[in-house]
């Protein structure tokens, strides 16, 4: 067990360096001169050009640039934008809004997804089960930006139930619609996963034993099966964080929430490589850490699985 955790942490370190390297290498491939892009139409003095080149290590070889970058990341320095604002500052300002959006989405997806999955699972092959099955495929099939605009159009404008944009500063009310949109796709996956995991567990030997002991159906499903069925769902939620981040870029852009996702969108449009890399690096690290934690929790919680 301890050796598993140590190995898993070692793997995390490897993934951290390799993934940051890959991202950095990809961005380094940007053709064109970022300083010229910054200068725009005006001529830039040679001395200023020199200073900027030195400040951002643009004249050094690729590996040296990566080293500057990764040693900065370890110390919490994610680089700075071209108007000299540290990326960490940008993240600090914007992250809380993204986090709120993500938390609301998470709550919606857990509550509705798990409930729908359990409903469908205990009524396997009945009408409700089929309904959940078909509607989840339908929701999964609608790309998040289509869903976002549809929600704006229907719920925001036609019905007028919720505000179309989140507002500034965003209110709880304003967060609701984007959170529902962001949650929708993962919600469907959660429902399906809960259902199939529950169906499988309901046929397990220990459930038969529990029934044979004369326990009530409620207790068998509620206590014995339910808890075991949630293990794959929790693993999914960790992996799903990646999709949630991608979804946040689109949701925040559509609903005009000034969070991390919108910043990535703006930075890609203005070719601010440092900002894109800084934020994506942080997101990849968060993603890796969450997966590490879940894997370790998994090892602690589920004694049936032996790691060697």
């Amino acid at each position, binding site marked *: 067990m301890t050796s598993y955790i140590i190995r898993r942490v070692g793997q995390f370190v490897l*993934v951290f360096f390799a993934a940051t390297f890959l991202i950095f290498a990809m961005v380094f491939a940007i053709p064109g001169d970022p300083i010229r892009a910054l200068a725009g139409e005006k001529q830039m003095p040679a001395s200023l050009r020199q200073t900027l080149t030195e400040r951002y290590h643009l004249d050094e070889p690729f590996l040296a640039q990566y080293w500057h970058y990764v040693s900065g990341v370890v110390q919490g320095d994610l680089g700075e934008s071209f108007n000299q604002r540290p990326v960490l500052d940008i993240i600090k300002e914007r992250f809380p809004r993204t986090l709120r959006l993500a938390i609301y989405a998470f709550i919606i997806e857990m509550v509705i997804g798990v409930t729908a999955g359990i409903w469908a699972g205990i009524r396997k092959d009945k009408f409700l089960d089929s309904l959940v099955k078909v509607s989840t495929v339908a929701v*999964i099939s*609608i790309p998040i930006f289509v869903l976002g605009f*549809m929600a704006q159009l229907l719920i925001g404008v036609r019905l007028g139930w919720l505000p179309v944009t989140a507002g500034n500063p965003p209110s709880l009310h304003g967060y609701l619609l984007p959170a529902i949109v962001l949650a929708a796709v993962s919600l469907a996956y959660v429902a399906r996963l809960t259902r199939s995991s529950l169906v499988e567990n309901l046929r397990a030997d220990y459930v038969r034993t529990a029934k044979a002991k004369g326990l009530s159906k409620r207790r068998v499903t509620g206590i014995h099966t339910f808890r075991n069925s949630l293990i794959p769902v929790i693993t999914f939620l960790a992996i799903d964080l*990646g999709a949630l981040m*991608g979804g946040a870029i689109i949701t925040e852009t559509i609903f005009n929430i000034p969070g991390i996702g919108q910043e990535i969108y703006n930075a*890609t449009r203005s070719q601010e*490589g440092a900002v894109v890399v800084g934020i994506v690096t942080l997101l*990849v690290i968060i993603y890796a850490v969450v997966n590490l934690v879940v894997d370790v929790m998994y090892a602690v919680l589920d004694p049936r699985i032996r790691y060697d």
Partner: protein
Amino acid sequence: MTDTTNKTPTEILAPDVVTPEVVPAQAPKQGKPASLWTDAWRELRRKPGFVISALLVILMTIMAAFPQLFTSIDPRECSLINALQTPGGEHWFGTDLQGCDYYARTIYGARTSVSIGLVVTFFATLIAVTLGSLAGYKGGWLDSTLSRFTDIMFAIPLILGAIVILNALGGSRGIWTVSAVLIILGWPTMLRLMRSSVLSVRELDYVDAARALGASDWRIITRHVLPNGITPVIVYATITVGVIITAEASLSFLNVGLQLPAISWGLMISAAQNRILTFPHLLFFPGIFLSVTVFAFILMGDALRDALDPKLR
């Protein structure tokens, strides 16, 4: 489970092993046990979900291959006089900001989405199946190297990675560039599936038997391991077509995917995004086509999984 491959149908149907799903009428008449795929096909034909999704996939593929069958209008022939007409009479789906016929553009959009979806899935699956079966079958350093590399690629979420690469590539991004990036990021999950599936097949008796008979690694992999281990990957690949189509549309929507003058549903919605509230048809038609196409592939993967995985019955 009892091994049914070397029994006659009558033995398989012996009272003690009859399950509700296996009724005598379905028994193959040739005296040869039905394979997994024959069984699956027999079941799939009767599943409405599969029939509907198969019909939709065929329809969309025909639309992608021969858009001329559905419209005689050139999607690139636009006149500003006709700009932003609502659906009706001459223009069934209305027109866009440039006055192009929206119906023709929506029809032609199928080509981009379906071809990117199929091409990316094909190559990603090819990479995953080749490397995954090698890693699973050979084990050792090859397996460790490939698995660690997969872990690294796995740590980069699809959309985030694609944004970073495509943004870095800049310049003109065509179908091939976008496809290549999605292939690079798309194979890790399928490789893991293939590897673990091969790991379980590798230990089975018939592989030992083939090895004892002196079969080469190549023969064992192609004749025994692949046919028996590829099922989960095929199911997942079908769903991946839908996922990739969504990814392309999302990237084009975010302005890091395809660029004009390419015709793509994601681009159409992106171009319309400031006018959606006043001209909903600009969102509605490409949105519906996009969702229905993705729906078809995901539903098909679902039906395949139900038919191929006896555990879920």
